[in-house]
């Protein structure tokens, strides 16, 4: 069949020129990797060998970083249905393309949870003896997550996602998208990639690294989603539509509420423990400042954006972090974690590698 004879592919209800359709399509092309096949392709033996060669403080540094990813990926995976509900808000133009994209989005978050859950129970099980509690089913985050600002970020994200999904209000959607896509995915997770890139140089863990590469590729689409969504809301606010007034202010306020928790988490993973794997807290702050400016000034051009705010908030948060007793916090949360395991077996999620 020649090119001229081939039928033209058409759609009726789906706008294939939509930006949201492109995000959906890229999710299909790049986001359907299989965790089990990844493990088969890369293998886990080298990771276990490297892991077993690390010093206790080096393992502790990895554990602090990965705990944050395990719990936040789990939390956002459980918010998957809320993303789909949120995207169906009448204030977002009843777009089938947005809802289609949201289904792929939710699938990738579930898969990230699967990857990190598999990894800590297969490779890092000596520093994660118990991982089974589910925060949404009477449990709590892992002790290391509870000990730093990441648990606060998770709480904010869950609360805003529920509000945005329930009432679909543009300002609530703006707060939820700022917490989730700008601060958790856009600043905290990308900061986490910065730390892991440096830590990988001291202790290369090939399966973990490859998993991170796929996760961060998916998350790149999520950050794009956040920027597109917020830009859309801002455009309607700037056009004077009453229901959208307050979006700009809400984005800025929420980013400032979240930032200290991000800085606290970064400090907890690096400077608080003398940085045995060279994660580089100062370098991360510099990179965070660039990401902050790129998101809130260059991409969204917020009216409320104030120069130097990042460095002021970061400095204050780092000073407070320097005085924190993180080891004591971990110990306390490990005790409550153990009590919950003992007191209520119904909170325990069983299955997967840990029980094989």
């Amino acid at each position, binding site marked *: 069949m020649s090119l001229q004879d081939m039928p033209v592919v058409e759609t009726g209800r789906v706008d294939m020129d939509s930006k949201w359709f*492109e*995000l959906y399509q*890229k999710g299909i*092309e*790049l986001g359907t*990797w*299989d965790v089990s*096949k*990844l493990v*088969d*392709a890369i293998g886990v033996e080298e990771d276990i060998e490297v892991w077993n060669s690390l010093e206790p403080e080096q393992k502790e540094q990895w554990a602090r970083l990965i705990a944050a990813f395990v719990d936040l990926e789990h939390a956002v995976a459980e918010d998957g249905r809320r993303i789909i509900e949120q995207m169906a808000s009448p204030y977002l133009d009843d777009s089938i393309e947005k809802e289609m994209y949201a289904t792929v989005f939710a699938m990738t978050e579930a898969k990230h949870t699967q990857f990190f859950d598999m990894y800590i129970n297969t490779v890092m099980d000596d520093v994660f003896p118990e991982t089974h509690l589910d925060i949404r089913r009477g449990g709590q985050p892992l002790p290391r997550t509870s000990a730093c600002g990441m648990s606060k970020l998770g709480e904010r994200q869950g609360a805003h996602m529920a509000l945005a999904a329930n009432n679909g209000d543009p300002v609530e959607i703006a707060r939820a998208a700022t917490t989730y896509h700008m601060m958790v995915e*856009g600043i905290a997770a*990308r900061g986490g*990639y*910065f730390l*892991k*890139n440096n830590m*990988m*140089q001291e202790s*290369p863990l*090939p399966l973990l*690294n*490859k998993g*991170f*590469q*796929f*996760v*961060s*590729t998916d*998350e*790149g*689409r999520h*950050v*794009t989603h956040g*920027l597109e969504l917020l830009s859309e809301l801002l455009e309607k606010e700037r056009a004077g539509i009453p229901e959208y007034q307050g979006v700009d202010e809400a984005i800025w306020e929420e980013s400032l509420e979240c930032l200290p928790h991000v800085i606290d988490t970064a400090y907890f993973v690096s400077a608080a423990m003398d940085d045995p794997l060279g994660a580089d807290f100062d370098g991360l702050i510099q*990179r965070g400042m*660039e990401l902050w400016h*790129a*998101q809130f000034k*260059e*991409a969204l051009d917020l009216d409320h954006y104030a120069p130097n705010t990042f460095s002021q908030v970061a400095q204050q948060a780092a000073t407070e972090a320097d005085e924190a007793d993180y080891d004591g916090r971990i110990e306390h949360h490990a005790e409550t974690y153990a009590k919950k395991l003992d007191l209520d077996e119904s909170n325990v999620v069983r299955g997967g590698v840990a029980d094989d």
Partner: protein
Amino acid sequence: MTDLTEIGGGGEFTASDDEIERALEAASDELGEPVETIAEEVAYILDSGTGSATNEGVAGTSVGANATAASDPRLEALELYKLNNRI
């Protein structure tokens, strides 16, 4: 779409444009896909389509994890795309 030779932020380019082109052609032979399609996907992996969401989870990663990628984030992303097609 950002051009594959113009992506910045999060990683340094160490390979020449010729090396990138040869790697894309080899991947095209291996995967049976046009060079242009692969280049677009690799660029998308690196910048997610906005030019402001540069994927430093890939772009910044070079040492230790993939000896064939010669430390260039574009080659790292190409390796990731090839693996993505397998899994």
